[in-house]
């Protein structure tokens, strides 16, 4: 059945290009091309980002405002600082972008972060070489993710239920495994993953960039990515076209778990400690970043580029509010309002003419 939910309309909009607004500031060509782009990849890529330009405008606007309001915002160190703080949410959000484009949802990311964090930490504590410990962490994350995937694609559970369950199972697991106590104090080698720099760029930022590059490529250029879209857009059609739906669905959740594991690595290195209660409500931030980035919760459409912008909007916002020393009550209010406004702007830009 057709599901003309906002994201959908939104999308039509950017397709039925010539609606004046669709050009979030002179990007008209990009938008129009999105419809008719010849197969070659650049217009294609461009076309896809086009859908994010509204949101991107929002990000820029936000930055301008903060730049005017405080001298501390637009400094190299602060921007690096923001990028670093965003990296964890951004990495998780990539996984969620895949899941959501695939037509699902994953509420368990936060708990998986906690679980793989403590697993990895306990391995590190045994003075095992860092790479192995990291692999253990990533493994734990992937495992939880794959379990989600199996429950959903073979057990036919609604993704919401399966991952809600995993949310509390993984949390309980983390608590039991660590006996409820944080595991902390790691060697420099491991801490480097959070504190280190390569060419003046902090490692977490590099990790984030790497993840996004890979994710974008996978999503746009590989069968896996193509099937993620196809399944999310019309699972039945995908199935009848011979796409191994179940396998790919499972993999998608596995990927989300893997990325939560990666986030756990960064988080643990950053705090020099793995907490069983880490990552509470991370799922909301990650989903928000994804949806702000223009990925439709109805599935079938979205992009990691947008998600990155979404994550940055949230990071910049929080940073700005701190710099301005806004009271934390007001902060909650403002964050909510800005999220709404950011997307609202985007929407009205792209409102299709009925």
């Amino acid at each position, binding site marked *: 059945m057709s599901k003309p939910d906002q994201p959908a309309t939104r999308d039509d909009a950017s397709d039925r290009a010539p609606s004046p607004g669709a050009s979030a500031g002179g990007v008209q060509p990009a938008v129009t091309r999105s419809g008719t782009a010849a197969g070659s990849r650049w217009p294609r890529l461009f076309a896809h980002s086009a859908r994010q330009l509204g949101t991107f405008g929002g990000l820029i606007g936000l930055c301008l405002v903060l730049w*005017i*309001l*405080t*001298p*501390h915002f637009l*400094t190299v*160190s*602060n921007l690096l*600082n923001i990028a670093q*703080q965003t990296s*964890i949410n951004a990495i998780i959000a990539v996984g969620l972008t895949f899941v959501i484009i695939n037509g699902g949802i994953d509420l368990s990311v936060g708990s998986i972060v906690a679980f793989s964090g403590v697993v990895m930490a306990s391995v590190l504590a045994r003075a095992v070489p860092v790479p192995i410990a990291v692999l253990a962490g990533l493994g734990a994350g992937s495992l939880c993710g794959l379990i989600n995937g199996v429950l959903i694609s073979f057990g036919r559970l609604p993704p919401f239920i399966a991952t809600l369950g995993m949310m509390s199972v993984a949390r309980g697991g*983390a*608590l039991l495994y*660590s006996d*409820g*106590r*944080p595991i*902390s*104090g790691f060697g420099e080698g491991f801490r480097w993953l959070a*504190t280190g720099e390569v060419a003046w760029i902090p490692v977490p930022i590099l990790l984030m960039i790497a993840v996004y590059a890979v994710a974008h490529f996978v999503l746009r250029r590989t069968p896996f990515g193509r099937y993620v879209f196809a399944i999310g857009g019309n699972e039945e059609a995908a199935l009848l076209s011979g796409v191994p739906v179940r396998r790919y669905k499972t993999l998608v959740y596995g990927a989300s778990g893997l990325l939560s594991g990666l986030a756990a690595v960064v*988080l643990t290195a*950053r*705090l*020099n*400690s793995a*907490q*069983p*209660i*880490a990552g*509470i*409500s991370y799922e909301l931030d990650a989903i928000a970043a994804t949806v702000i980035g223009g990925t439709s919760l109805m599935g079938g459409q979205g992009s990691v580029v947008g998600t990155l912008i979404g994550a940055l909007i949230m990071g910049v916002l*929080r*940073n700005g509010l*701190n*710099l*301005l*020393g*806004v*009271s*934390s*009550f007001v902060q*909650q209010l403002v964050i909510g309002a800005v999220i709404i406004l950011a997307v609202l702007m985007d929407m009205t830009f792209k409102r299709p003419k009925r």
Partner: protein
Amino acid sequence: NRGDPAAGGGAGVAGQPAVALVVKTLNNPFFIEMQRGAEEAAKKAGVNLIVQAADREVDVERQMQIIENLIERKVDALCIAPSGSREIVPVIVKANRANIPVLIVDTRADEQALAAAGGKIATFIGSDNFDGGRLAGAFIVEKLGGKGNVAVLEGIAGHETGDARLRGFKEAVAKAPGIKVVASQPANWERDQGYNVFQNILQANPSIDALFACNDLMALGAAEAIAAAGKRGKILVVGFDAQPEARTAIQNGTMAATVAQFPARMGATAVENAARLLRGETIETFSPVSIELIK
């Protein structure tokens, strides 16, 4: 410099030194009290006070971000109530690198971790949750004359604040063999869960003589459950934090006692010490804030 953050920072005049107080969360009266105390002290001491906090008490990574951002903002002194005693250390080190003095409030920063990372703090202002738990335990033991059934309401599982309070309590009651802890269940710091969970505990153990709740919110919730079960006055309820509501509850007998940590005084002392530091005076490295039982 245009629109310096002091604007929005609320308190005070530009040009004055900026002191930041980063608490665990402001969704908790305990820290609102701390904020109040700090603000009054700030006025007297003539500093710009910026109070910030994460939405969730357990979210230490978020607290870390806030502190990083305040470092970017170049505040002159940082007062921190750590959400995690070990997890806070890395950002303390960052503050050290930026030559911003760090004053720890309410919850200690872990010594070894600090030493290992070579982090320095100017002072610790506060009291020990562990001791608080022991006080509560001792009180119950005494009141019950060394024997009886006790229930416990825990905070969010794995949260060290609650953990410390619980360990202190357990140690104290362990001394009295006659005391049995018949139930120990999580109510996640929350009032409504305190109500529900204790209501359920009562179903399983009708003969409970005393309850220790790791914070007042849960205690207050439980008190309502007790009233609803028609057991008002029959069960000894001891809370933690001594929030205004708990104090009134003690006056009208729905609660027996609560552990007071005087958050307002902590906040005030922290700001005063910060101010003195900035004036170049020296301060002692530990200013204990008495912890006592309000009966």
